[in-house]
């Protein structure tokens, strides 16, 4: 044994048998954390308040809350530890490649976080007098102007809160435009490969949804679409690039056919990141498209939101765009920004379909997205699309010998590479490959979507991955895929190194436990 002078061993002894179990159940840096309600109590608080002044009368209308609420509190050190420990049970883009197809998990620049927190943006009330928020309105106006230029469209609605809310905005504008010409159409056509939000949104907006099939090359079947168009069809919702990661080469023809039949074209812009700076949707005949700022312009996903879903419009739909919006007025003393709301809409915008949300939209996302856009500029945004597409094609061509790429033969993909489960050994599935990737230190790709491919695996690397990072990921996925093809039964047990093994989703749905309930003391005593 090697020791230093104090007798402390400085070299590991030969590792013996390892049991893996510990007294706490923790494993070094892998720390389990109880629920807040198991460690906190209603008498603990982590906030000090300045002593209140002399007591005054209560004006609560006799409705004082007397029953306990049951909100557990923790001191500040305990709070910081609780959430820090929980955070360490999450995978994140900061930790590694996050190839979740259609979700666009790219690096989130911290500059964007910094500017969003400037008090001049973060500490503004939405109902302050308009003269006191000219800088904030300038941000909304500037970002909107970039979005209009990048998409080649006519106008933009900034208030939608997320992609699906943007879809709703687009469909309400379409319906308003059709109704304005006395045209009460009832059907929206949606390709089978669409995001679930598309049909859900169409239904939410009062439309009946019909599917249109894909052709063998993973694109919208133009003939099938054309044959379904008619006086009852209000429009189509098309994702382009689509959810198979492919550009719709017939897009101009699709738009022309829909327009010829009196309908309008909605484009789901979830995948705009693949074409920003290289293609303007306005050149494809699109009437409305939402832009997920949290995808293309990298505002953080935050474990499920918030997002932001501005919608760009063609000239035909512009008069129907929702309130509020910002108008820039060039005056002698410099530019001024007007907020067009209910009160002044009549002069400017009398055909608006109305308001979709309180206040003005996701300001905190606007500042971040604008910082991202200004950082990249027109040249950098084009490079973003090119690198995203290059990275995806690199993954596609590096793995197509081991994983079936159902549309690989039809040419290059856009920003994401699609594989199927064809060739996996009996009993092994896409889910097993996904869980195997977790053990390799990766978040899995999107699985079982789009629905048009069996056992789909949709890999979106994004442009913020280096070649070295891609090569390592490709190696890992290759290895797991080979195990799946060889029928390696150990893959069924994956993940074995994650904070949890596979979770029982059936149990969760069958006996829903959606809130914590303190154990019944009578039962606990038994």
């Amino acid at each position, binding site marked *: 044994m090697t020791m230093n002078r104090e007798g402390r061993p400085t070299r590991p002894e030969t590792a013996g048998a390892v049991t893996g179990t510990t007294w706490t159940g923790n494993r070094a840096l892998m720390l389990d954390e109880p629920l807040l309600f198991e460690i906190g109590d209603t008498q603990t608080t982590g906030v000090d308040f300045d002593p209140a002044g002399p007591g005054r009368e209560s004006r609560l209308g006799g409705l004082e809350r007397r029953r306990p609420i049951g909100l557990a509190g*923790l001191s500040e050190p305990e709070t910081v530890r609780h959430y820090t420990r929980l955070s360490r049970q999450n995978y994140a883009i900061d930790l590694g490649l996050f190839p979740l197809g259609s979700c666009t998990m790219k690096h989130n620049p911290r500059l964007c976080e910094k500017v969003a927190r400037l008090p001049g943006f973060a500490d503004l009330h939405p109902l302050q007098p308009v003269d006191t928020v000219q800088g904030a309105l300038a941000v909304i106006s500037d970002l909107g102007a970039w979005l209009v230029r990048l998409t080649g469209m006519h106008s933009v609605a900034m208030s939608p809160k997320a992609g699906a809310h943007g879809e709703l905005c687009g469909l309400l504008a379409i319906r308003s435009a059709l109704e304005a010409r006395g045209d009460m159409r009832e059907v929206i056509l949606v390709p089978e490969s669409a995001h679930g939000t598309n049909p859900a949104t169409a239904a939410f907006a009062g439309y009946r949804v019909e599917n249109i099939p894909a052709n063998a090359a993973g694109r919208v079947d133009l003939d099938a679409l054309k044959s379904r168009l008619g006086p009852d069809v209000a429009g189509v919702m098309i994702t382009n690039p689509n959810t198979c990661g492919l*550009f719709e080469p017939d897009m101009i023809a699709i738009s022309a056919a829909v327009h010829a039949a009196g309908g309008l074209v909605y484009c789901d812009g979830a995948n705009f990141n693949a074409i920003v700076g290289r293609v303007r949707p306005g050149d494809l005949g699109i009437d409305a498209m939402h832009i997920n700022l949290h995808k293309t312009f990298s505002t953080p996903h935050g474990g499920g939101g918030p997002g932001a879903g501005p919608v760009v419009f063609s000239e035909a739909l512009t008069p129907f765009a929702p309130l509020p919006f910002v108008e820039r007025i060039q005056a002698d003393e410099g530019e001024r920004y007007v907020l067009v709301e209910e009160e002044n809409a009549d002069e400017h915008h009398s055909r608006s379909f109305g308001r979709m949300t309180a206040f003005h939209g996701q300001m905190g996302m606007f500042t971040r997205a604008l910082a991202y856009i200004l950082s990249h500029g027109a040249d950098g945004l084009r490079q973003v699309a090119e690198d995203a597409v290059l990275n995806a*094609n690199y993954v596609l061509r590096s793995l197509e010998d081991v994983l079936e790429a159902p549309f690989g033969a039809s040419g290059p993909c856009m920003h994401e590479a699609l594989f199927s489960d064809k060739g996996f050994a009996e009993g092994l599935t896409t889910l097993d490959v996904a869980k195997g990737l977790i053990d390799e230190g990766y978040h899995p790709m999107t699985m079982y979507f789009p629905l048009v491919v069996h056992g789909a695996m949709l890999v979106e690397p994004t442009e913020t991955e280096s070649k070295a990072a891609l090569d390592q990921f490709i190696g890992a996925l290759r290895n797991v895929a080979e195990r799946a093809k060889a029928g390696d039964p150990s893959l069924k047990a994956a993940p074995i190194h994650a904070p949890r093994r596979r979770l029982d989703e059936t149990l969760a749905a069958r006996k829903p436990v959606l809130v914590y309930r303190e154990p019944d003391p009578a039962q606990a005593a038994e």
Partner: protein
Amino acid sequence: MRYLPLSEGDRAAMLAKIGAATIDDLFVDVPAPARLPAKIEGLADHASELAVERHLGSLAGRNMVAGQGPFFLGCGAYRHHIPASVDHLIQRGEFLTSYTPYQPEIAQGTLQVLFEFQTQVARLYDCDVANASMYDGSTACWEAIAMARRITRRGKAILSSGLHPHYVSVARTMARFTGDLLETMLPELTPEPDTMRLIEAVDGETSAVVVQYPDILGRIGDLSELAARVHAQGALLIAVVTEPVALGAIRSPGEMGADIVVGEGQSIGVGLNFGGPYVGLFACQERFVRQMPGRLAGETVDAEGKRGFVLTLSTREQHIRREKATSNICTNSGLCALAFSIHMTLLGEKGLRALAEMNHAGAVKAALRLSSIPGVELVNDSFFNEFTLNLATEARPVVRAMAEAGVLGGVSLGRLYPGAQTLANGLVVAVTETVTDEDVAALEQALTEALK
């Protein structure tokens, strides 16, 4: 460019592996007329971090910051002090840069937070269950109306005149397309909310009565009798809470019989942010859970029997049910829900009650002081931290004049109800724990000056 790691050498090697001569070969599916040969003209090129920060800093400098002077705005967005640890914790990359927890084995952090968040919201509202958040209060309100239609199979909702006018606008926009009938009215500057009117209006065709608590003018009305009447007609009571801190002081809507409680969570942990992103809270009684919109985290066990959490009951949601889903919502307000949850954990029940008490005490003090100004009359009998003043003159110019004097003195009802003459003199004043005695004195002086 600093966010793009590929070198020119990498790009060349990768194109070679792909078998493409140039990057243009990867865009061959784009129809020729739509291919842009070069970057879009007339837009700026990339900029350094320093340059971007400087530019946005100058835009930020053109705004009047709420915290830099006396500040009294509310009406659906409130300025509260947020402990420093909240923003620190939500900026941990594992929270900030993670995705919707679709792979639960490596998303237990987010899932446990959501489970705790749901529990906090359910308890605050006194409901059985709560979801993992909505976009904001206004959209949550419409979703509740649509949910009540699905449950009752009736299409007429009666909206209290005390419901936030933006929430009414959102519902009106949607109802025009869904065919729901909405009964709405302008509020009146009376001491009590319109509970009695609602009790009389509810009938056998009503799907839901929607009532804000405290209401847009700050008034607080007992919902118990209304709930009984609504239930007797087979309808649902939807309560909307735009100021969650109030529930540290006043009875919860659930306790008084509300079936669905929705609201804005911004006050706790989120900050003003010029109106967004905020966090919509959504809770209901257990029997309605399968009609709820939005994501739900639920408890389960893993293959070794250890407790864990997953997204559950997803057969309600768009990615499974498509056009038959309960809502089209996908992305929610996860990070804001986290901020809410952390702040609520720091407060705990004791802290929330203390915070509410401080807010109310400050508001009572300010209301007495301001209503003694000549030409100023307090409208409310009851209020929490926000009350309405009826001025002797139109409030909008008064608000502007006070802003010029450096005081953001409240929200004029003329801003919220343009064209409504009966409300034009109304000024809604919110007093949170951030307001000092000096601030109230400044408002008193500015208001006195403006009314001269």
